[in-house]
């Protein structure tokens, strides 16, 4: 086998350009003759736009053109890609999301006007001269208030602020109610899943270009999925056919979900470049990112877990209010529904589950998928209520979990998914080992000597990744297929270019994907190059999110490579004058079984392109294959996490002492990259648990709109992590046996942290504290201790 095949911790080839400042991010792209756009954004949360006077601004130095909502009234709104059907069988209420605000502004940051100038400074200066007359309306901020009779409506043309009320599984509702009524014990918990802002370090950027030569438009944008942007923007917003529109996402500085969606600024620069016949560039400031990037989470939930007299889980019921913000972002409606409700079984055999969700419009930035998307919300509720139940029943929280683990696979949950494989006992055993759970009592005693309270929090998680079987999601309301694709182009000398639908913005695809093909063919990975992020080069495919790149796009790449190998074997058989069935491929060499006759990989690839001695009557020349892969099921990574905290009872400050994660990701291509993915996910989960919160005041002002107000995890806020992924139950339905690892850390870590804090408080005699909402700040802990 070559060095650097499957299972090798190959160093990343993309690192060299990033380490030397040679990366090519969207803001590094400057086109000849480009103008700059600055968006004038609403500084009120809700109001009627009475007039937008641009006359003075248009006379300012350097101003090229100013556009307002009036220019977009005939142009499509930004579409939502998932139609949820409510519990009565009706479609969700779906308001128009104009490119520039029209009639009303609906959140702080809603774009009102776009000033295009010769420099960004001139555009900003001119924006200050625009006179906007807004009749301010009451801001709709609190979700429960938004649903009251007579509440101010965010969208005047909708019936009310309820996007939909979803019940899942509606047919189980009465049985769940009955089981809870008759249960030996019911544990109830009300909690908030805090509103977060994804904050990839690279702010969004969009550059629109237009060619008068052939009337083609090009958009350079910070996207996780350029084909999705081309589809949505071309077909639904601007009416540009696919072959006249190219979308390029070069190096992208982190995504975490918030760069999945199609944003107004992308449509604007593409459209404006067509109007002006010159490139138009927009670079988000961080302040704009806070008030225009889709936010994440923001669920308010009541959960009830019913147990029988032997502590077996018998039923689960949840009622959630999910904030949609002011408009429906691209996948907003799927997050609190299909990505959340289907995970409520967790790792446990609870026979009856009912999930109810009210999705609510408010005068806040749209809320959509953020790392984990629905699955962290499900995991947090479930793992917190189990911990509370264990405390109420006086049983060990790990034992209670173990008792209720699903242990036989495949397992059909009562929430419509079928786990193909897993081993939750193995990951819990591994966790107990690497976290040294047995040694906790001694560590607690040490902390207590210092006057600190020490807590241990443990939880499990499961996630549904590798989204998704197209026929299934089509039934559930997705307005797209969710396959992926790869084209494997073998060049004459044997090197390979692989054009993939997945997009790498930190995940290391350029290194890991070649490891797979190198293993299959037996050649050096350096002969293989991954091409991604340009719709003019890659096949139509759906991109990177939901921990899907390897499971879905990687599978497409395997299928395409299998086609290559099959064809190459037929060519080799011709060259060696034997039948196809006699050819074996090993270590980059095609040999005749049982003989010493062989031809090299390069001989065959050259023959494919210089077909002088070649069976042209049977086989086409060339060696290039494409495969589209539509997964048969989701994949189900799972694991167990443990967090230890020290809590200072004098101040309420929580410090993370250690964090351990035992994950089952199935087979692993590059362990180093997988470790890194888990590390980063855990840091974001710790951020959610202890630090991060997007805060709106009652008037809809976003109070946490800079890094001075929104607490991003810094190096001193997090520990070193112990992570292990030696427990491997390979996925049964994709060719690599892989499950996905990108979101696990962010899904699995928040409950471990909060469980640890509650454990610490109980060890100090604060038994009345059963829950503290995230972020568990010193102020909140201290206040709870005083109650």
């Amino acid at each position: 086998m070559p060095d650097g095949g499957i299972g090798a911790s190959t160093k990343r080839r993309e690192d060299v350009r990033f380490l030397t400042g040679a990366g090519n991010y969207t803001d590094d792209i400057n086109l000849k003759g480009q103008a700059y756009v600055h968006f004038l954004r609403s500084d009120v949360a809700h109001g009627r736009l009475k007039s937008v006077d641009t006359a003075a601004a248009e006379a300012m130095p350097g101003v090229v053109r100013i556009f307002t909502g009036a220019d977009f009234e005939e142009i499509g709104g930004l579409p939502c890609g998932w139609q949820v059907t409510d519990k009565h069988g009706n479609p969700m209420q779906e308001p128009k999301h104009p490119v520039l605000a029209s009639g009303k502004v609906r959140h702080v940051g809603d774009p009102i006007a776009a000033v295009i100038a010769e420099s960004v400074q001139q555009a900003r200066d001119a924006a200050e001269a625009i006179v906007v007359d807004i009749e301010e309306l009451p801001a709709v901020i609190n979700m429960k208030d938004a649903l009251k009779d007579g509440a101010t409506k965010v969208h005047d043309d909708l019936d009310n602020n309820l996007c939909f009320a979803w019940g899942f599984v509606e047919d189980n509702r009465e049985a769940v109610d009955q089981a809870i009524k008759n249960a030996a014990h019911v544990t109830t918990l009300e909690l908030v899943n805090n509103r977060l802002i994804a904050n990839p370090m690279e702010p969004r950027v969009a550059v629109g270009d237009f060619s008068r030569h052939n009337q083609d438009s090009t958009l350079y944008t910070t996207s996780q999925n350029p084909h999705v942007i081309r589809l949505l923007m071309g077909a639904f917003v601007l009416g540009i056919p696919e072959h006249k529109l190219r979308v390029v996402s070069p190096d992208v500085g982190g995504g975490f979900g918030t760069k999945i969606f199609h944003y107004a600024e992308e449509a604007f620069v593409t459209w404006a470049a067509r109007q002006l016949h010159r490139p138009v560039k927009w670079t988000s400031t961080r302040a704009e990112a806070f008030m225009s990037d889709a936010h994440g989470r923001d669920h308010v939930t009541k959960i009830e877990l019913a147990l029988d007299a032997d502590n077996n889980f018998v039923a689960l019921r949840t009622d959630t209010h999910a904030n949609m913000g002011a408009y429906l972002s691209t996948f907003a409606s799927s997050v609190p529904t299909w990505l959340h409700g289907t995970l409520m079984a967790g790792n446990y055999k609870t026979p009856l589950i009912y999930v109810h969700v009210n999705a609510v419009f408010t005068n806040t930035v749209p809320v959509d998928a953020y790392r984990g998307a629905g699955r962290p919300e499900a995991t947090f509720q479930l793992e917190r209520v189990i911990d509370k139940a264990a405390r109420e029943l006086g049983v060990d929280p790990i034992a209670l979990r173990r008792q209720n683990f699903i242990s036989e696979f495949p397992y059909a949950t009562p929430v419509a998914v079928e786990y193909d494989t897993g081993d939750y006992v193995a990951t819990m055993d591994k966790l107990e080992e690497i976290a040294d759970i047995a040694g906790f009592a001694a560590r607690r005693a040490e902390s207590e000597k210092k006057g600190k309270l020490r807590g241990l929090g443990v939880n499990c998680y499961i996630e549904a990744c590798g989204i998704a079987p197209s026929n299934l999601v089509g039934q559930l309301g997705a307005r797209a297929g969710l396959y992926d694709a790869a084209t494997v182009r073998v060049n004459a000398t044997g090197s390979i270019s692989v054009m993939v639908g997945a997009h790498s913005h930190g995940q290391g695809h350029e290194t890991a994907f070649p490891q797979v093909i190198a293993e299959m063919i037996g050649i050096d990975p350096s002969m293989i190059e991954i091409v991604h992020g340009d719709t003019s080069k890659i096949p139509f495919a759906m991109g990177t999110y939901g921990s899907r790149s390897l499971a879905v796009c990687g599978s497409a790449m395997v299928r395409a490579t299998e086609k290559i190998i099959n064809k190459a074997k037929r060519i080799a058989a011709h060259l060696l004058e034997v039948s196809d069935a006699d050819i074996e491929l090993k270590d980059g060499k095609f040999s005749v079984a049982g003989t010493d006759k062989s031809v090299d990989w390069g001989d065959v690839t050259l023959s494919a392109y210089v077909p002088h001695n070649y069976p042209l009557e049977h086989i086409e020349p060339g060696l290039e294959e494409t495969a589209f892969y539509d997964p048969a099921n989701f994949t189900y990574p799972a694991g167990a996490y443990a967090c230890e905290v020290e809590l200072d009872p004098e101040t309420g400050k929580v410090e993370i002492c250690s964090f351990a994660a035992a994950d089952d990701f199935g087979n692993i291509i590059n362990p180093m990259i997988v470790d890194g993915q888990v590390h980063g996910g855990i840091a974001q989960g710790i951020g959610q648990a202890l630090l991060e919160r997007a805060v709106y005041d009652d008037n809809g002002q976003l109070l946490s709109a800079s890094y001075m107000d929104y607490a991003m995890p810094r190096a001193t806020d997090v520990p070193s992590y112990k992570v292990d992924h030696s427990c491997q139950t390979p996925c049964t339905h994709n060719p690599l046996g892989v499950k996905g690892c990108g979101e696990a850390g962010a899904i699995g870590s928040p409950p471990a942290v909060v469980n640890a804090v509650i454990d610490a408080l109980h060890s100090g005699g604060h038994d009345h504290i059963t829950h503290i909402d995230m972020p568990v700040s010193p102020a909140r802990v201290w206040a709870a201790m005083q109650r």
Partner: protein
Amino acid sequence: MTDVTMTVNGKTVSGKVEGRTLLVEFIREHLELTGTHVGCDTSQCGACVVHVNGQAVKSCTMLAAEADGGTVMTIEGISAPDGTLSALQQAFQDHHGLQCGFCTPGMIMSASALLKDNPKPSEAEIREYLEGNICRCTGYHNIVKAIMAASGQDVSAIAAE
């Protein structure tokens, strides 16, 4: 407009800037050295860290005119002229201390300043020093490990991967 002249990565450069032009704008837009990044507008994230007269500074917090006559080093000046990575850059690759790469130039510039002042920093000292550099991808674990390794220290003490 003001004329400025400075030495950037060993080369003398000059240009005309507005009084309000930030050093980072001069570096990225006038000199087209796009390795230095802008990740925020409040001097918090550290993606724009460069060295001015040997000190690590956030180039979004300094006017270009203030650097007039000075010596500036950016990420493009760190590796050897033949492209060989510095020991610190190499350690970042060896220990997977970067993912999306956007914060990385600032991390390298900050960490190299740290190692100049404190050649063998402890894990706690490294974490403290990096307070002004935000990374959203790595969870910092492998960044800390890379910096310790680059300073010739045993990294087995950092929790197993």
